Structures are given as structure tokens and as C-alpha cells.
């Protein structure tokens, strides 16, 4: 039975995604109805994929974050006031450009 079943196993991932032709789908459905071993294999495959989707994200170690920030090229230290002026100037330039276009 197992040897017979083997040829179906490779189609299980596509079957779960509904990505196989209707003929093969029918064959698999008929087989799954009479083969508890294959049904178990299919259900555990489905469960495996679900578990993968549930995996949480790893946090970024604080030390790594610090290391990255320290490795950035040193730029001119800008005070928030200078920064404010630069941003305002850039916005004004954009506005003028828009006006000219209109």
C-alpha cells in the first residue's frame, strides 16, 4: 500500500493549494477517502504549513542596533533649528517648482 501511495505524496502540496488539474484532484480525493495513512500525511502537511505561518519574528538584538548606528558615516551634526531651516527651504523649493509648472 505504501509503495502505491508514494506516487500521490508529491502532489499533496499542490493539492492543498488547489493547484492541480481536476482529474488528478479527483483521483486524490478518491484515494484519500479510502486511505487513512495518506489522509494523515495530508493533514500533517497542512498543519506543518500552518505552523510555519504562525512562527513569530525574532527581535533584533539591542547590541546589533547600536552597532549599526555607530557604524554609519559621521555626518555634520545638525541642530534641530538648522534642520528645521533646511526642511523649510526644501519645501519652499518644491512649492516654487509646482507654481512654475502651473
Amino acid at each position, binding site marked *: *500500500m*505504501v*509503495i502505491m*501511495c*508514494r506516487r500521490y*505524496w*508529491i502532489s*499533496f*502540496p*499542490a493539492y492543498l493549494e488547489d*493547484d492541480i488539474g481536476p482529474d488528478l484532484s479527483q483521483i486524490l480525493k478518491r484515494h484519500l477517502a479510502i486511505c*487513512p*495513512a*495518506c*489522509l*494523515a*500525511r495530508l*493533514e*500533517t*502537511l*497542512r*498543519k*506543518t*504549513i500552518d*505552523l*510555519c*505561518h*504562525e*512562527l*513569530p*519574528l*525574532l*527581535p*533584533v*538584538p539591542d547590541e*546589533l*542596533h547600536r*552597532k*549599526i*548606528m555607530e*557604524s*554609519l*558615516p559621521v*555626518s*555634520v551634526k*545638525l541642530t534641530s533649528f538648522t*534642520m528645521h531651516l*533646511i*526642511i523649510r527651504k*526644501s519645501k519652499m523649493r518644491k512649492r516654487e517648482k509646482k507654481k512654475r509648472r502651473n
Partner: protein
Amino acid sequence: MENIETEKPEAELVARAKIGDHLSFEKLLKKYEVQIYNLAYRMLGNRSDAADVLQEAALKAYQALPRFQGRSSFGTWFYRIAANLCLVLIRNHKHKQVPISLDTMLSRKGSSQEEEKTFEIADWSHNPAASLANKELHKILSDSIATLPAIYRSPFVLYEMEDLPVKQISEVLRISEPAVKTRLHRSRLLLREKLSEYFEHLKK
């Protein structure tokens, strides 16, 4: 003050970071670093390479920011830089990527048919231990993904975890769409085998 800074829209943070404001760049980094670190960890299979990729991607993004034109969002752009770095690393290690034949994959459990049959009947999908709350299973699954052969891991991560469509994965990995699907299917079968081994071991 901190709260006011946090609420700044992304475009303004990008504009400030472009002219060298580390604080604004740090806020952008904070926003995307977890996603990028996890992409790299899953693509490359270990934390050390993932850390290198995040650091390299951040540096590249910072240096290229003045040329960033905002045609895509900053997050997408940053993500793409990191994904490309992962792919370069994967391609450089191509010689280590050995595909596993389906037969090898499916015939690991004992040699007798009877042993296989008994094993296959075990349906652990409803077992209460089949949950990520089970720390042991959680670790086994994470390790199994991390140790998938790279040719299977990349399409698997991009499809299952990063939600990229098959067409895009085939472009990114420079392989055909059917090849992407085959590798995806095999990676799922391999992971199922790994988890089944664990549940089989639990029964003993």
C-alpha cells in the same frame, strides 16, 4: 519631545535622514529592522549572517538615501536592498546547495514497509503538542527551516513567509516558475518529515 519626534511622517524622516540626520535614520531603521533581520535569518539560516545583512543593508541604504527618489516606499526600497544582499550570499554559496531527491526525502523512516506504514498512519495534526506554545516543537520547526537546503529555503521563505507571488520569486531567484513550485513543494514535504520525526519520537 520623543513622542512628537515619533509621530513625524515617514517622508519627513526620509528627508531629514537624506541630509545626514542620524536620529531620523534611526527611527526608520527601528521601523523596518525586525522585518529585514527576519527575512535575512530565514533566507540564510543563521543569526550571524542575518546580522551582517541587516548591518550592510542599513549602511547601503544610508549611503544611497540621497539618491532615493521615493518611487517606492522607503520600506520597500530598504527591503529590496536586503533581499538582494541575501541573494548574493546564497548565489555565492551555490556549490553547497545539493538538491535532495524525492526518494531520499520520503524513504528515511526505516527500511521495512511495515515500519513506514505504521509511521504514516500517525496523524499528529490534532495533537495538543502540535502548537508553537510547545517550545520544543517551535525550536524544531525554526531549526528545520533554517537547515533546509538553500535551494529550497529561499523559495519557501519568500512564498510562505514573505508572501511573494511565484512569478516574482522566479524573477528574484532566476529560476522558472515550475522550478519555484517544485522547490516549494519539496520544502514543505521536508518540513513535514522533520515534524513527524519529532512526534514519532514523542510516542516512544
